[in-house]
């Protein structure tokens, strides 16, 4: 009895030990943006089914978090690909290089609008970027006049503009690790705050102060950091008609039966308005590939090929069914070329 038990224990330890020693990573590891996540998972599934390679493992960590992991180094324990809902920053590339990640291939996969949405059961709303800035910034120009910043005094949307609903300001949005957050800050908050001339002037004098004034979001409960999961935001909006949420257009597109997007500067977030650039808050989506891993981790090249193929990224590809706005023809051709030749960023 005891011997059998002992043998069992030994056997299990031995098999585990041996299995570990021979484990070699045979699958692609992908991290990054939750906005790109739904596209990447669909491609990964198709890739897994149509090739002999294993399906890549994808974790949604946010663009910033993903790039951070991606840039941590070269090696099996580091991810091969990171998705990003914004372009990689120069500072991040430097960080990458410092850690030995020298050649990074950039693949632009399409465009996505950032929508400010709310429950379908609420009344339609139209915002300007200035209004959104006033609602969400930590410090705003004194409503009583004067060129100084005060702690954000606005409690309801109506406080900002009488045309807006008389609801408490409650916006669910992503945390700083998210690319959607970065893009929102750049495309909405910066624009909104630059509409005040004295803040715009600060940019020349004190860049850091300008950045702090424009990009710092409220922490008094009006802006709620809802985590990396855009799905969660959608669910919460559905349940709470008084709240707004900030998320990628693809999520709006997928959940048209539950939520709708507010117009920004009078333009509603639609496939066409984002594609033709009339919707003001749109940004490109990317993923980045570690060139050092190509040819070492099996399948990276083929994954690239699958992602950039016409049946995926093309005009009628399955990604556009999911709400990705395809690249213009010439840009698409350039991306495909880059992916084929594995041209790294300069």
């Amino acid at each position, binding site marked *: *009895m*005891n011997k059998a*038990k*002992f043998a*069992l*224990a030994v056997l*299990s330890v031995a098999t*585990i030990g041996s*299995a*570990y020693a021979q*484990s070699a*990573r045979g*699958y692609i590891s992908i991290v990054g943006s939750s906005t790109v*996540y*739904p596209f990447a*998972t*669909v491609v*990964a*599934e*198709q890739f*897994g*089914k*149509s*090739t002999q390679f*294993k*399906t890549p*493992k*994808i*974790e*949604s960590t946010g663009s910033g978090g993903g790039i951070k992991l991606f840039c941590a180094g070269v090696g099996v*324990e580091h991810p091969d690909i990171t998705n990003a809902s914004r372009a990689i920053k120069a500072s991040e590339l430097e960080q990458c290089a410092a850690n030995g990640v020298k050649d990074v291939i950039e693949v632009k996969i399409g465009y996505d609008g950032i929508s400010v949405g709310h429950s*379908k059961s609420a009344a339609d709303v139209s915002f300007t970027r200035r209004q959104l800035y006033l609602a969400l910034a930590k410090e705003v120009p004194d409503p009583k006049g004067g060129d100084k910043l005060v702690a954000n005094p606005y409690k309801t949307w109506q406080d900002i503009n009488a045309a807006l609903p008389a609801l408490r300001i409650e916006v669910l949005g992503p945390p700083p690790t998210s690319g959607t957050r970065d893009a929102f800050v750049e495309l909405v908050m910066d624009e909104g705050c630059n509409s005040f001339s004295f803040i715009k002037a600060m940019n020349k004098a004190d860049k850091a102060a300008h950045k702090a004034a424009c990009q710092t979001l409220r922490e008094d409960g009006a802006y709620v950091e809802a985590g990396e*999961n855009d*799905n*969660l935001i*959608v*669910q919460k909006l559905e349940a709470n008609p008084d709240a707004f949420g900030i998320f990628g257009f693809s*999520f709006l597109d*997928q*959940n*048209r*039966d*539950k939520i709708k997007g507010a117009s920004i500067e009078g333009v509603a977030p639609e496939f066409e308005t984002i594609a033709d650039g009339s919707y003001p808050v749109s940004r490109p989506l990317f993923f980045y590939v570690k060139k050092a891993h190509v040819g070492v981790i099996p399948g990276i090249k083929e994954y690239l090929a699958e992602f950039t193929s016409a*049946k995926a990224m093309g*005009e*009628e590809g*399955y990604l*556009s*069914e999911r709400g990705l706005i395809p690249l213009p023809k010439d840009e698409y051709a350039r991306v495909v070329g880059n992916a084929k030749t594995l041209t790294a960023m300069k």
Partner: protein
Amino acid sequence: MSDASETARTSYARVEAGMKRRRAAERRFRFLGKCAVGLGLAFLAILFVSIVGNGYSAFWQTRITLDVTIDEATIDPAGAREPQVLRTADYGALIKQSLRDMFPEVSGRRNRFALYGLVSNGAGFDLRDKVLADPALIGRTISLTVAADDDVDMLMKGHIDRRAPESDRRIKDNQLAWIERLETDGRIGSAFNVDFFANGDSRDPELAGIRGALMGSIYTLLVTLGLSFPLAVSAAVYLEEFAPKNRWTDLIEVNINNLAAVPSIVFGLLGLAVFINFFTLPRSAPIVGGLVLTLMTLPTIIIASRAALKSVPPSIREGALGIGASPMQAVMYHVLPLALPGMLTGTIIGMAQALGETAPLLMIGMVAFIADVPGGVFDPATALPVQVYLWADSPERAFVEKTSAAIMVLLLFLATMNALAVLLRRRFERRW
């Protein structure tokens, strides 16, 4: 009569006077007790009704029959029938073509998308598998039954109201018209959802299955069982039968009792810090999950095993010792066999607890999107309860149904394990 019986009489009168109030109080209290039990059972009933009500339909899947022309020019332009070419060809295009052929009047990008959206993204792969199995089909037109898109599925199952205004439903008016045409043609039907049990996770609800999560759970539990049972039994035998009473064993004892009540998420933190950061075991792997759950279930199994040992009467030990057996012999040959059923019962209950556990697995990365079915303890995997968590967070309506169905499967497994434990207890229970 004496004075005493006089007071007895007055006191009796007072007792009688209070009886009405007291009987009412008694009834109230009893009613409260009944309410409490009733409420507890009602919660249970609501829980089950809500889950079964949401989930039973997931076991059926709406399917659409298409006439697909397998066009050689699209899938094998070279005509060489090379498996590699056949495997990677764009079968989706054939499916789309067949839909266009069926509804030639549809034009415009949006409308065509809406049309393609009727069938699942997996349809092309069904076709591929058919062609790979029999390349002679190329050039012929075959009748193919494929899974419908999840929205169509939801519509057919009645979760989407056909009479709701168009803007409020995910199936648009034009799609509704096509579906109705398919219905009149008898091309749309319902079948047992094999995919749900055969597939791994997917972003498409109609393709998503629990096989990957189930295998992940099984691998995790195998590791847990293989480690925790021998460890727990040995520890219990030592502590109950041999350990001297001293500070050290007291410490172990207090430790075990505490560990049994430590929140499971703390074990997740332990796993993250020790197994992943320190020993650099892979993230998202059943081996790490199994190790974490082993540590988590050990106290439970040790406590149950000790109870089983305790319930063996001392007379058995004394009997063995009395005929000259060593303490070790007495335990190994006489006490342990008698305690084993109780230990097994405790182990099964510990395993059931491990099977239902989610929080520590979140900490060690078993929440990634993993479409492949894991093939070993080092492959990335999720587990059943984590799959429930992931699906519960997915926005598609069809995932609500899938989530509930996955819960039903999970509960079925738990019920089986517990029934096994009860059976074992009944079968081997001895009264001393």
